[in-house]
């Protein structure tokens, strides 16, 4: 067990006193329940609220006809109840507000909506007529890159792989559903919101309601997970604010679990064609990663699944492209490691196929294709210890004892196999501000609008501050989770600790300088130092920066049922300095656990006829349960990289999910000799291969 500090808010969380967004009930609170559209495309003709308003306790039904008007913002998924258009099934068409949650729910069921439905198109196909090449993919990278002569190099390569991998839609499903408690007072708006960044929510609400942001306070003290789907403001906060304004009451809006799939973003379905050309030695000479995916008609989101293929291995001649079709479906968005989790599934499975084709050990193949520079820009990596992770992982896992032949290990009716995959996640940094204060009595206070969505942000910021101040951590109090604090970026892109921590570090060092100037004597009313890292974060740094890792999986496949059971999963990561081993390990393991879900059970199917996700609740959309997870281990390599930030940290919240699905899929192939290129690896897909005569 690590000696690093336990979570500062841990006691509140284990005793039940930590309050989440829906756990504030100001006097007079009313309850809201949204009404989702039941057609996939069309217009609302009329909303009959008579029966709903007859419900005892009914306060109001908001529709596009009476809801407060919103100003236009870039993210049009937030422009709810503004017009009669229904862009996809599940889009909100009304909001019931009542004295009690029971009444609000009954009202929502009683609202009668008449639609003029239109013909919809909700299913992605590889040659869909609506496909186009966008300018950019998520994270602002160019959608298409062509370097050298892929076609020529591929044609000349003695070893070639051409394989297509498919992923279904995936849902974030944090355990706390999206929730807001909002109230207006004297023209000011207060909201407890379940989000990954209260500054962004505050600014967006200001834009939507056309107000000065100083008159809006958004609090996110404790957040029950997000994994990307709370990274941008979501409709619940807009609905709660509108309902509170309309009724003049505080309003609590909690999105029902089964509605989340349609309104909070998801990882879109992806079709990925991989072509690798290599020499006899397995060294890649040609690489193409062509992504086909979907977005909605409301908002363009293009999951950058080909991005990792620009970063991982030597490949002079390469083509990496994204095509997207805007369908009549819910809007996709960020889900843990968007781009990397999905793209590395395809790339790392293709690497396994290449290892088999070239007759090279899969660990060795990755070592041979290692590169010191980011191939797409030619910039050197500030640090890259992929090879060390592979070697250390192989040693810990006992990889050398593996018989490389597929289907070489049996235990009764079980086939046992092991597989490996690399992990990768870029280092992002965002400008942040922070304040460090000292009281006359020598106690310290850190103020920064960071959000702890389960990462341990509060705790690690206290550690960073104590170290920068040179004082014991118990002298440092940390205030986070409110837009009333110095503005800070969201908890996303694994950039929280680096971005907030840098600002905290800077404020602390400034404060130490101020104390030193006074010869160490503290004025009775204390001192405050404010810092902003806007100018510290270089726009064109000389290095490429990323975390790397390697994951090893062992599976048992039941030849009678086709069921895959994970026996072991071991990850080794090189992610800069891990600032808190206790909580850092949890981040890695948590990501890997979600990766197990992606590999074995998670998947959402689009109902073509209704334009609806078929699996919308936790009974039908399976996430890993306790019994699915055995023997997950995470280790890391001490990495000292001076090019990152004053703490020397890289992000660790997302890399854990990157590579997991490929390691498991590769292990399943090793166990069975069957290559399933469609996630999740459900029994029926494997049985089809296992039954075929070999």
């Amino acid at each position: 067990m690590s000696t690093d500090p336990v979570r500062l808010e841990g006691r509140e969380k284990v005793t039940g006193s930590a309050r989440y967004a829906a756990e504030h009930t100001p006097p007079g609170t009313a309850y809201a329940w949204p009404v989702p559209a039941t057609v996939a495309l069309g217009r609302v003709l009329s909303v009959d609220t008579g029966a709903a308003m007859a419900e005892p306790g009914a306060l109001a039904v908001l529709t596009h006809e009476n809801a407060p008007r919103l100003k236009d913002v870039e993210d049009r998924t937030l422009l709810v109840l503004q017009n009669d258009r229904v862009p996809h099934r599940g889009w909100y068409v009304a909001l019931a507000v009542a004295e009690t949650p029971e009444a609000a729910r009954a009202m929502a069921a009683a609202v009668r909506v008449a639609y003029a439905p239109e013909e919809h198109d909700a299913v992605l196909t590889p040659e869909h007529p609506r496909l186009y090449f966008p300018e950019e993919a998520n994270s602002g990278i160019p959608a298409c890159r062509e370097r050298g002569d892929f076609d020529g190099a591929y044609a000349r390569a003695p070893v070639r792989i051409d394989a297509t991998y498919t992923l279904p839609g995936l849902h974030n499903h944090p355990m706390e559903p999206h929730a807001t408690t909002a109230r207006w007072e004297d023209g000011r708006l207060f909201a407890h919101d379940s989000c990954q960044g209260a500054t962004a929510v505050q600014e967006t609400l200001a834009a939507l309601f056309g107000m000065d942001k100083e008159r809006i306070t958004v609090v996110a003290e404790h957040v029950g997970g997000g994994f990307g789907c709370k990274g941008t403001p979501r409709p619940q906060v807009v609905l709660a604010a509108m309902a509170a304004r309309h009724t003049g009451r505080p309003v609590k809006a909690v999105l029902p679990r089964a509605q989340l799939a349609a309104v909070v973003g998801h990882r879109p379905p992806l079709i990925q064609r991989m072509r690798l050309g290599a020499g006899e030695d397995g060294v890649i000479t040609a690489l193409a990663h062509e992504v086909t995916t979907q977005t909605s008609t409301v908002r363009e989101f293009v999951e950058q699944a080909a991005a990792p293929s620009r970063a991982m291995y030597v490949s002079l001649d390469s083509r990496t492209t994204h095509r997207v079709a805007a369908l009549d479906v819910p809007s996709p968005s960020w889900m843990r490691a968007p781009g990397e989790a999905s793209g590395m599934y395809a790339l790392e499975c293709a690497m396994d196929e290449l290892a088999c084709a070239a007759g090279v050990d899969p660990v060795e193949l990755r070592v041979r294709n290692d590169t010191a520079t980011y191939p797409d820009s030619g910039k050197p990596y500030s640090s890259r210890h992929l090879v060390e992770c592979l070697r250390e992982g192989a040693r810990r896992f006992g990889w050398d004892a593996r018989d490389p032949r597929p289907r070489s290990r049996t235990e009764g009716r079980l086939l046992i196999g092991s597989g490996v995959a690399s992990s990768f996640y870029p280092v992002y940094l965002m400008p942040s501000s922070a304040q460090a204060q000292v009281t006359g009595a020598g106690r310290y206070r850190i103020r920064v609008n960071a959000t702890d969505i389960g990462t341990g942000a509060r705790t690690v910021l206290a550690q960073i501050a104590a170290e920068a101040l040179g004082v014991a951590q118990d002298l440092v109090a940390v205030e986070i989770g409110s837009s009333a604090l110095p503005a800070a970026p969201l908890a996303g892109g694994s950039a929280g600790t680096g971005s907030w921590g840098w600002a905290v570090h800077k404020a602390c060092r400034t404060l130490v300088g101020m104390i030193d100037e006074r010869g160490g004597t503290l004025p009775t009313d204390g001192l405050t130092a404010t810092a902003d890292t806007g100018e510290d974060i270089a726009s064109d740094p000389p290095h490429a920066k990323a975390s790397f890792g390697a994951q090893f999986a062992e599976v048992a496949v039941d030849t009678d049922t086709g069921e895959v059971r994970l026996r072991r999963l071991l990850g080794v990561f090189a992610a800069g300095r891990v600032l808190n081993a206790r909580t850092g390990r949890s981040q890695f393991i948590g990501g890997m656990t979600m990766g197990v879900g992606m590999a074995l059970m998670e998947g959402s199917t689009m109902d073509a006829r209704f334009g609806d996700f078929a699996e919308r609740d936790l009974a039908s959309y399976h996430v890993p349960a306790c019994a699915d997870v055995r023997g997950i281990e995470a280790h890391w390599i001490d990495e000292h990289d001076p090019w990152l930030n004053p703490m020397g940290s890289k992000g660790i919240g997302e890399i854990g999910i990157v590579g997991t699905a490929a390691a498991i899929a590769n292990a399943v192939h090793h166990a069975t000799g069957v290559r399933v290129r469609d996630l999740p690896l459900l029994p029926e897909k494997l049985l089809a291969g296992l039954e075929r005569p070999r």
Partner: protein
Amino acid sequence: MAAPQTTSPVTLHVNGVAHRRELDHRTTVLDALREHLGLTGAKKGCDHAQCGACTVLVDGRRANSCLLLAVAHDGAEITTVEGLADGDDLHPLQAAFLEHDGFQCGYCTPGQICSAVGMIAEAGEGAPSHVTPLAAGPPGVPVPLSPDEIRERMSGNLCRCGAYVNIVAAIGDVTR
């Protein structure tokens, strides 16, 4: 004809304190705790008995409180996560969850801890699980809680943060 009765007086004994409220017949035990008694320790993750976040102990047994109607539990003894610690002294499971980092966002945590309390009692009474060997002895003999037993018996409590490894270690620490 008189209007149908839609509320009733209900007494819930929560963590040793009796609470009497006039409750809507549709109100669940979970909503009674969270919205009427201000006890928000039990969480609402799905409201459909699919996640375990709302797990509390009802008359000593773990239960998904989102699936129980309060009016049907008049007089019940309910223990929530708020009732486990002894003053400032954490319940051994709470202390173990803290030490082993058996949670991240903390939203599933009250349910996990209450579930573990109930689960340990069930195994102690000899209730078998899906993974209990058939030869595990006569009824009523306590079932030893191996990691596999813990994993199986705790699978009604989902944790999307993926803290299972540490949850099993924390419970194992207490039951060892």
